[in-house]
């Protein structure tokens, strides 16, 4: 099989499942599930094959898909170190989650729709990864958004799920607004090749950026900055960075495997991947990189803060994903290509592990609340506890674990002159990460010894759990347990794959190596110990008050619980601005335009009544009127 055939198979196979589902195969769930599993396996095999047989200079095969005289759009695949590595991650995790979902969704009546949309997501995500033309990336980007909408709103009979799905789609759409505009401007300012039709082939873009063809100014600013900032909007939207992040915690309404696959490992990582893909373009203007760094570092700290106080396990993991994504962005924005990406790979591993184990915990405890899980399940489920331990450890950044290895590279990258502020923020972030990671592990695993803290279960996680819990144990549990254990083992080894990854990306392994006795590592370990210790003190040790040091500062705690009131400002925006615009538009439509047009019609009608009244019935009035008009005509004749 040639590379392009592999590519077509990887992207095409899952899509076939979705199309067949649409055409009616959906009526037989088992067939759909089987089909989606086989296509997932095929795709995963495809990604591995492409990663292994990648020729030295990369491979690109495109066909012009929609051509007009001004510009043409190409579809195809572009295999580079980066794209095959990312494809590998996506393919494998997707296969794992599909397996896991077999158990998780065993009893759900709409199972066929779930697996079909999941395959649609896989094909879209792979298409983002392997795209050769930025427009193809944009297309896949939108499809990913669509499938996340359908998956978050999978249980659409739940109003909260429907609301969350809509919110996710709209917010990411805001981001895509900037992305589309950026792409359009990029397309229009690309150097014109011979045929006169411009296009957005990534290879051409990188080449143009390299030999500085894109210089010049656009609306008075440097072109790189304008395009870079606009593309950044898309990334901020998709990877849930600061202004457009509040959809991710609500996205937890969806089934847990969805959260595992989409909202931790792959989908939200698409933004970071795009940044890595077009890194030379972003770094070409210093303003864009500093803005990216600023947003990322602020989001890291902000998200970590919320994660520290959030009672619900999946919400904690969601906020933690936001902050980890900011770390990746910081790494990339600070200039190193491998730092962010390595963290992306490891994060995909341990965050997916954490989510899958959370799935088991919630299945068993019938509730998403941390203390509830701690009390009911504690460490009874072997696999889940193992997953939780390994995941939490690498999340917190315990040395030699996957999280630590990749985060350390990022911290090292930030440790250069000029990035001091961001470095300290990163350190603070990793400390807070250590805090909430240990807090989560401690609350669940050490629940029996600690005094019973006041327990509050949020309404909607209750309902969600009822749904999860009606499984009949047995085969489903064992499948889920096996996947978690497998993933745990893989995550353990991930940390050490740094050099191979760098080699795959065509960079020397030095960039990823950690010199253990440097001051940076020391600082990182101190941050870990500080955060972890504090959390252990609050939650882990016997007799802990399980309150969290923040309960001492109720104002801050309330703000953090409410997610820095971001939801409230977005609702304000939608209520005030959008509703206001709608009402004024309605007013114009009903009052101004309609009223004036009906007015014209009534005017004509009253003109009619006036004209008819001329017909008074008196014969002599008729005659005099006729003569009067004739007289006027005669006068006009004389005068003209």
């Amino acid at each position, binding site marked *: 099989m040639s590379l392009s055939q592999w590519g077509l198979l990887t992207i095409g196979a899952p899509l076939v499942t979705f199309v067949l589902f649409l055409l009616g195969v959906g009526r037989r769930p088992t067939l759909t599930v089987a089909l989606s599993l086989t296509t997932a396996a095929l795709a995963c095999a495809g990604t591995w094959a492409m990663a292994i047989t990648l020729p030295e200079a990369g491979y690109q095969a495109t066909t012009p898909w929609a051509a007009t005289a001004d510009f043409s759009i190409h579809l195809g695949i572009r295999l580079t170190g980066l794209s095959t590595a990312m494809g590998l991650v996506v393919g494998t995790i997707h296969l794992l989650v599909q397996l896991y979902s077999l158990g998780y969704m065993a009893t759900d009546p709409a199972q066929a729709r779930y697996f079909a949309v999941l395959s649609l997501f896989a094909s879209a995500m792979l298409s983002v990864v392997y795209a050769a033309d930025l427009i193809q990336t944009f297309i896949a980007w939108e499809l990913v958004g669509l499938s996340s909408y359908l998956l978050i709103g999978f249980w659409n009979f739940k109003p909260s799920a429907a609301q969350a799905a809509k919110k996710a789609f709209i917010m990411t759409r805001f981001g895509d607004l900037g992305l589309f505009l950026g792409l359009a401007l990029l397309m229009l300012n690309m150097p014109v090749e011979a045929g006169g039709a411009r296009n957005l082939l990534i290879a051409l873009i990188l080449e143009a950026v390299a030999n500085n063809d894109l210089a010049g100014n656009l609306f008075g600013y440097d072109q790189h900055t304008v395009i870079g900032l606009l593309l950044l909007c898309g990334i901020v939207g998709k990877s849930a960075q600061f202004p457009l992040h509040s959809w991710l915690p609500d996205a937890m309404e969806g089934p847990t495997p969805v959260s595992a696959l989409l909202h931790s490992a792959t989908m939200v990582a698409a933004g970071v991947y795009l940044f890595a893909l077009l890194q030379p373009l972003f770094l070409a203007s210093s303003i864009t990189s500093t803005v990216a760094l600023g947003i990322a570092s602020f989001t890291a700290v902000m998200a970590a803060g919320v994660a520290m106080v959030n009672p619900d396990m999946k919400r904690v993991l969601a906020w933690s994903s936001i902050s980890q994504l900011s770390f990746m962005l910081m790494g990339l924005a600070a200039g190193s290509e491998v730092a962010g990406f390595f963290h992306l790979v490891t994060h995909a591993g341990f965050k997916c592990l954490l989510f899958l184990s959370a799935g088991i915990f919630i299945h068993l405890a019938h509730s998403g609340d941390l203390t509830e899980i701690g009390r009911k399940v504690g460490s009874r489920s072997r696999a889940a506890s193992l997953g939780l331990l390994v995941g939490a450890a690498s999340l917190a950044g315990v040395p030699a674990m996957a999280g630590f290895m990749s985060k350390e590279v990022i911290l090292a990258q930030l440790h250069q002159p000029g990035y001091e502020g961001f470095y300290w923020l990163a350190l603070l972030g990793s400390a807070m990460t250590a805090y909430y990671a240990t807090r989560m592990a401690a609350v669940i695993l050490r629940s029996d010894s600690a005094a019973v803290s006041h327990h509050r279960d949020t309404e909607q996680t209750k309902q969600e759990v009822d749904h999860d819990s009606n499984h009949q144990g047995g085969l489903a549990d064992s499948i889920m347990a096996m996947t978690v254990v497998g993933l745990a083992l893989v995550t353990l080894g991930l940390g050490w794959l740094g050099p191979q990854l760098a080699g795959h990306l065509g960079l020397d392994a030095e960039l990823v190596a950690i010199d253990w006795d440097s001051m940076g590592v020391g600082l990182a370990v101190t941050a870990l110990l500080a955060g972890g210790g504090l959390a252990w003190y609050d939650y882990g040790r016997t007799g802990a008050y399980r309150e969290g040091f923040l309960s001492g500062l109720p104002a801050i705690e309330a703000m953090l619980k409410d997610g820095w009131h971001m939801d409230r400002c977005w609702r304000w925006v939608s209520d005030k601005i959008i509703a206001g615009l709608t009402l004024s538009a309605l007013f114009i439509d009903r009052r101004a335009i309609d009223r004036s047009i009906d007015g014209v019609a009534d005017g004509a009608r009253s*003109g009619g*009544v006036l004209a008819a009244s001329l*017909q008074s019935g008196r*014969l002599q009035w*008729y005659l005099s009127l006729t003569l009067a008009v004739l007289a006027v*005509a*005669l006068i006009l004749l004389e005068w003209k």
Partner: protein
Amino acid sequence: MSGIYLRFLPELGLLGLALVLFFIAVGPGQEADEREPADSRRKRLIRAAIAGDRVALVGGGVVLILAILAVRQAGPLFFGAYRVALFSQVIKIILAAGLFFNIWLAQEAQSLAPRERPELMLFLSLSTLGMMMLVSADELISFYVALEIAAYSLYILVPLTRGHGDHNEAAFKYFLYGAATSAVALFGMSILFGLAGSSSIPQIATALSANPSTLAVTALLLTLGGVFFKLAVFPFHFWAPDVYQTTSHSVAAFIAGTSKVGAVAALLRLLLMGLSLDQLYWLLGALALLSMSYGNLAALAQRDFKRLLAYSGVAQGGYILLGLAALDSAAYAAASYYAIAYLALMLLCFLVVIELGRTRHGVRADGSTDNSLPIDALGGLYSRSPWLALALMIGLLGLAGVPPTAGFSGKWFLFKAILDQGGFWWVLIAGINNTIAVYYYLVVLKAAYVTPAADGATAIETSLWPRALTLSVGLGVVVLGIAPQIIMPTLQAAVSAMIGS
């Protein structure tokens, strides 16, 4: 010698028909005979009336055939007082066709007493005869007498409606308004006679073009007044709504349809005299726009269908006058094409009025006759009689200028001719007027097609006559609309021959 008879064939045919009808009217069946019981006398009268109707129909058909035969005739008659040309012969065919269809409509007309039905046929044919002579009269005196023949037979027909009522009021108004206008027209003609020194139209034309003065335009305007009265253009239209509403449906059909075609033809011939007076262009244009707008606006406020048709007639007269104001052969051809289309569409509308009239017991409480037809009486026509509904739809859509009827093509040619003479803004005003007109046509169509039949409204069984008429005229209108080249070239040739000579 035979040439002369051939040239005068249609008029001779009509005279013959009038003679036959005269004898039927005063024939043996009519005189009152005490001994005879009332209802047998009534049956005899009805039989005589139906016999009269059939004879008139056959006679109308014969006249139509004669007119078609005589279409190629050309040349002067009666010592130059009468000119027969392709244009006059074409108009005679249309007038004969109009008469034939009007007689077809008036078969067993209910709104006239059986005793007076032969007279109805007699005066209809006399009026058509007058109009035929009007068209080829080449001399002011015969023009005036022919005009009066056409007019007086209609003044007599209007009061002939069954019983007493407000049609008498309309009759007197119609008569006196007509008399006064014809007196004013005569005054204008006398001035024309003075200016040209002779009453023959070609000489007047040469005299007027020799020294065009405001007096010439004044005189021509007054003379045109007489014909405007007949065409019911704005300042001369006041009689139309009352007459249409109150007189019997068959007479109203004739006044609305055929007599308007005659008026258009007469106007065309009179305008020959004023071709060189450019002030006339502005005057006629202004009159046309006024009458178009007045007709359309007034029609908006109407509740009675025939009154609405009257005002719409004023508006349609405005469109035709706008065409005639362009004073060039293409415009004249378009105007006559539009007049033909208008005649056919009016026949369709009045077919519905007459058939509905049969089912309405038109007598008010105080015994006076009520010939009005409110629009709501059309309610639910689609279910009561699909044939009439179809006829009404074609008629109304044609009047509204909706393709594929001849109304649309007519409007298109008319507006093209006007615009070619530089009337861009006039065409815009006419277009806007057309939109206003569509409103009240749709109000009627809504009554017929949308509002369900009022309870108690019985189904109207239409006999073979009206169905055949709907099919033939309706199809004719649609075919004429889609393929105007059937008659358009002949009209253009006729008009250019007339203007050229």
